[in-house]
């Protein structure tokens, strides 16, 4: 373990602080998220994820936000275990009929002010599962949605972009 730790200290972070080429967009986003978060949220935004029926593809990419390359927490954005600690509900999947009540209850348990981000094509309108007897539809059918993130699943960089857009929207509201 010592070698791994020493290497980690000597080699510097994997986090893409000065990324090149296709990651330039990500770096610009990162800077903007930081500015916006500082201005309106005191550098902190707590996110509660709810899977309302996804295929688990979205979850994999939401997980990726925490890895060393994206390192979500450096922006003050973090995932929390309880809706009672959350500012944002990040909801993935079409809402299944069997999950509808759980989503409604989670929303009700989140203190205001609160925002809902619908993650992925299914969360918009049911996606590939639209029209099924077992599906209510998109997240907007059940709780009010502030922002839709496109993609099936959205790439992690796209998810970062979405959180930024939300923060900017909030600033405009309060201005």
């Amino acid at each position, binding site marked *: 373990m010592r070698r791994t730790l020493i290497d980690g200290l000597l080699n510097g972070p994997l986090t893409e602080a000065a990324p090149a080429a296709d990651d330039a967009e990500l770096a610009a986003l990162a800077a903007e998220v930081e500015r916006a978060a500082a201005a309106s949220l005191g550098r902190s935004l707590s996110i509660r994820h709810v899977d309302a029926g996804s295929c688990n593809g979205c979850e994999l990419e*939401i997980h990726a936000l925490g890895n060393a390359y994206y390192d979500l927490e450096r922006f003050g954005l973090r995932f929390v275990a309880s809706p009672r600690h959350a500012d944002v509900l990040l909801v993935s999947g079409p809402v299944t009929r069997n999950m509808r009540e759980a989503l409604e209850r989670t929303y009700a348990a989140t203190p205001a002010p609160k925002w809902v981000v619908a993650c992925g094509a299914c969360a918009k309108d049911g996606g590939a599962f639209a029209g099924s007897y077992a599906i209510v539809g998109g997240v907007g059918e059940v709780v009010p949605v502030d922002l839709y993130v496109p993609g099936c699943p959205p790439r992690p960089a796209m998810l970062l972009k979405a959180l930024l857009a939300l923060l900017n929207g909030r600033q405009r509201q309060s201005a």
Partner: protein
Amino acid sequence: MTTAKPTQNMVWGEAWGEATHRLASGEAWLVGLWADGGEARLALSTGRPELEFFRYAAVDGSFPSVGATHAPAIRLERAIADLNGLKARGAPDPRPWFDHGRWPVSHPLGDGAPASGGEPARYAFLAAEGGGLHQIPVGPVHAGIIEPGHFRFHANGETIVRLEARLGYVHKGIERLMTGADRTRGAQLASRVSGDSAVAYQIAFARAVEAASGVVAPPRAAWLRGLMAEIERVANHLGDIGGICNDASFSLMHAHTGALRELTLRAAGHAFGHRLMMDCIVPGGVLVDLDRDRRAGLRELTTTIRDKFPRLVELYDNTASLQDRTVGTGRLDLELARRFGCGGVIGRASGRDFDARRDHVYSPYDELRFDTPVWREGDVNARVWVRIREVEESVRLIGQILDRLPVGPIHAEHEPAGRAGEGWALVEGFRGDVFVHVRLDEDGKIARCHLRDPSWFQWPLLEAVIEGNIVADFPLCNKSFNCSYSGHDL
């Protein structure tokens, strides 16, 4: 080259009882149990390359229960009752499974009658009674970034006396959506049965349809499928190894495997245009070819993993405080793994030496060299080690495929004329064997597609291994199983 074979050995009613008896006696294991129209269908394996199929005409809307003598069939029969409306006579558990009383229809794959409506009935969990016992309800919304399901613990202090899972929360009606779909739509749905197994499901669906319609995917397509499958396996195992360690509060490992996983997904995205490789495979072939530049990206990935992974293996092996949590925790008996036909890492960590790539061999694995690592201990530690060795094997396989990728077309030349038929495939995903059975109608459309996730035979075993463990070790055990909710719930 090996092709997917059409469904064979279909035997009617009288043999049903005998098949059930063979399952109960351990001569064979259950591969699938589903209903198609007014028929119950049963697939079982004795370890030979061919599966055995049985069908039972449920004339009065019922069929003899398999679950009455063979527990792995119980939940499948409950699903059949909910979806098709066929009852298993003598079934030990009459409770609904997928139908939580919230759908507008009942028996969506059967008569599709309007549901009775009203308040959903209260679900009766199995009891554990005695002084000092208490219940802990968890879910369906969990604390982490994870799929929904409900776990009901009965505990005595910290010790778990009984765990029962209630699933079905992410039931999306995939098999109903499959009915009447064409191949393209079917492949799109197959990609999204369980996002982490997108490749395995696409291959299984494609091979089942190919078998049913008499199409053979060209060699290059089969090899590219194998390449994607191994990349998927590496990405998921890396995530799981880190996830298990993280659930034992050893986040250093999680950080490092997470970085390797990200590189794997990026390489997949670069090579095939989608990080999880959804919508890359269709019946007849694949949709994305691999040029020189993309091939180089995958080579670089294998070099990076070969370079970085051994250090992480050493880290796991030499951290006593971590092993203190994983060794001896959540032990699964070989006998139980065998009885449930438990595939994948979980079965192999308990000594069940089964690998669909080898035992139901399909292209390209008939031309590749690989080992199937098997551990005997059956604990969390063994499940970590099997994953570690499988990452190494899959990296070897990726190297072999990149070296020897055949040239030629990536899709069969002619779309087959529509014809009725049945076909099946058993594909080794990262979680275990994915079984798909399709029946095509005269126009070549899907009349019935049944998709059976390996999790069906793993979820019940999680309940068995957790007994006598402490509540705090549940996340560790659960992560070391990593069953799919979506793949199970359909």
